[in-house]
């Protein structure tokens, strides 16, 4: 990953049967799912907010990226990944934390059309599987206002 520090790591997650990857250096915390509070007239792409360490964290509706259906519960997963962006922290739901691996143990490649949605245009290939590598900053920037 361009600009990734030496010994960079990648975290692999699964949400509703969809696997994805995140650069570890952006992850602030991985916490058990928290109560999600709805708020009026939120920007499309956010399903509410949660409170973490006395901070208001918007919860990103990750299911939209994978083209699935809204989850039955607001939280959308068993865990919330609190991810740091230049705009503040963002919460990302996950059902499973699969593993955390050294960046060097896999390969970052450009996504091909047939692969599961990779909005960053890149996938992390590890042990024969491709994990869409999410660029969270780009995801939230691209949301409509």
């Amino acid at each position, binding site marked *: 990953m361009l600009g990734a520090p030496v010994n960079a790591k990648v975290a692999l997650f699964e949400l509703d049967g969809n696997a994805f990857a995140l650069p570890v250096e952006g992850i602030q915390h991985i916490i058990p799912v928290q109560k999600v509070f709805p708020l*009026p007239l*939120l*920007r499309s792409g956010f399903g509410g907010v949660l*409170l973490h360490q006395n901070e*208001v964290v918007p919860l990103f509706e990750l299911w939209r990226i994978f083209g699935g259906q809204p989850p039955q519960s607001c939280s959308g997963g068993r865990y919330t990944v609190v991810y740091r962006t230049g*705009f*503040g922290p963002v919460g990302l739901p996950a059902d499973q934390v699969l593993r955390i691996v050294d960046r060097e143990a896999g390969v970052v490649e450009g996504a091909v059309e047939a692969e599961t949605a990779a909005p960053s245009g890149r996938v992390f290939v590890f042990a024969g599987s491709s994990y869409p590598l999410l660029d969270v900053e780009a995801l939230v920037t691209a949301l409509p206002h």
Partner: protein
Amino acid sequence: MTDPGRMRLVFRLGGVGFSLPVQDLIEIREEVADALDRSAADPAAQVLGALSHRGGSIPVRDLGRRLELPAPFPEEAPVLLVLTGEDGCWGVLVDRVEGIFPTSEFDTRPVPPLLVRQESLPYTHLDLWRGEPLVHCEAGVLQRCWGRP
């Protein structure tokens, strides 16, 4: 005697919690469903109807619809809040009033910039209260959601 200027009302509408300074509140009325004159309703202006109030009539505005909140369950009896306004009193129907609490219980924060739509949100701050975020309201700002009559 507790200073009303240092108290906030907490109410709920459409599953969302709100807080409002007590000095913006004129009256709380229950069992108003039958008293609402729906012949004065104006759906385009999000006005539910009119209500007699202290010898006059006040508009009752549909805050839930304006904020695109889920409709209340039919069996829930709404509560009316009569609020101060730049052009006179006005009312909103809410689902439940939690109570009035000292401002010291509220931790006011700006709404995270990520959440703000292009057109401004009708609220700019949240109140962290007893482990949940409430929409920080002021009657004047709410009234401006509907624009000048």
